[in-house]
């Protein structure tokens, strides 16, 4: 802004001088009016008046100042656009590869929507698995429901495969992963995406006149576990329940890749 002020003062000086002088400067003006840089929009006449001052005061640098300013303006506007883009990045459309990569990072994979013909909901089988989703671990069995943080890339009634399995167990066998089991998979179906009950976050500092109330509802996903794979399942016979005798559980430690 300082250069505008000095321009303005210089303009006043020059106008005073020119009015004191006579007409000849006007011809100079006419010759010089085509000169001014189209970038300078504020005062078109000024550079024509000021050509002697121009070189003395390095108005070429003023041009560059203007260009710098405009560049700064452009940068700042770009910055705003970037910040807007950042805000909209949160809701942006992920490409399928990005979706898979992010989902895999959390520990699950979307297989596809549930079809009516799928017989996914089986009876209870006495097998369990310790599975990790995000940062939480659950000990699941067939037919359990799990509440996790909102899983982004799946709709209701979608089938999922949870691939971060840390432990598999059965009445006779336990398979421990180091840290995960590569061949194990737990199948689940998304039951609902819902909000938790409202939690009121109340902050108060006594005798300081400070009180804040904030409400928060966490977004949850409910998964129904349908199948556990990766462990030997004996065929269930109707005669008698197998392997119920007092047998010590042999432990198998599966080495991970």
């Amino acid at each position: 802004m300082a250069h505008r002020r000095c321009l303005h003062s210089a303009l006043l000086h020059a106008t005073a001088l020119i009015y004191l002088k006579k007409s000849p400067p006007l011809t100079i003006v006419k010759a010089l009016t085509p000169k001014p840089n189209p970038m300078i929009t504020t005062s078109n006449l000024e550079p024509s008046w000021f050509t002697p001052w121009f070189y003395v005061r390095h108005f070429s640098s003023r041009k560059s100042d203007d260009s710098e300013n405009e560049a700064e303006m452009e940068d700042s506007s770009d910055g705003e656009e970037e910040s807007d883009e950042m805000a909209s990045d949160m809701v942006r459309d992920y490409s399928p590869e990005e979706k898979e990569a992010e989902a895999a990072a959390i520990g699950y994979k979307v297989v596809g929507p549930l079809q009516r013909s799928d017989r996914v909901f089986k009876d209870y089988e006495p097998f369990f698995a310790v599975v990790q989703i995000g940062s939480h671990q659950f000990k699941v069995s067939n037919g359990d429901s799990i509440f996790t943080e909102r899983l982004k890339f799946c709709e209701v009634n979608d089938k999922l495969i949870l691939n971060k399995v840390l432990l598999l167990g059965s009445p006779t066998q336990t398979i421990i992963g180091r840290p995960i089991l590569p061949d194990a998979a737990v199948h689940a179906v998304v039951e609902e995406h819902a909000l938790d009950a409202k939690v009121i976050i109340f902050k108060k500092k006594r005798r300081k006149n400070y009180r804040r109330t904030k409400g928060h509802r966490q977004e949850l996903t409910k998964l129904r576990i349908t199948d556990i794979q990766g462990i030997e399942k004996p065929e269930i016979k109707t005669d008698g329940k197998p392997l119920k005798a007092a047998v010590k559980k042999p432990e198998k430690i599966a080495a991970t890749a």
Partner: protein
Amino acid sequence: MALRGVWQLKKLIVSYCDWGGGSRGIRAFIESELPTFKEKNPQLEVVTELIRGQHPHLKGFYKNKNERVVCVKNMTPEDILLYATRLRNALGRKVVKLKTRHVTKHPSVQVMMATLLKHSLFGGSNSSL
């Protein structure tokens, strides 16, 4: 929402007023986004209802005979779509704080082994896996 593959939201009533300004968003929603919502959810019965002089709202009826009402006064059509999707995604259960994040009917797989081992000569191991 689907419990064991069965959608829980049966009916959605979209009520709006044709005069009031708070219904502007829902009127736009009915024109622009409600048809696609209906197509995506063929199992859902969507009804538009005109209530003059009252604020607009969405009413969801669930299979467990639960009703959820959401007032959508002064909302943009995108927000209304978000709320409608939330109603569709949810169970009809009462919104209470969760006791546990893991709901199961069979908390232990190997308990028979543990109880048997307790009684056997080898002594009891307290594994509740």
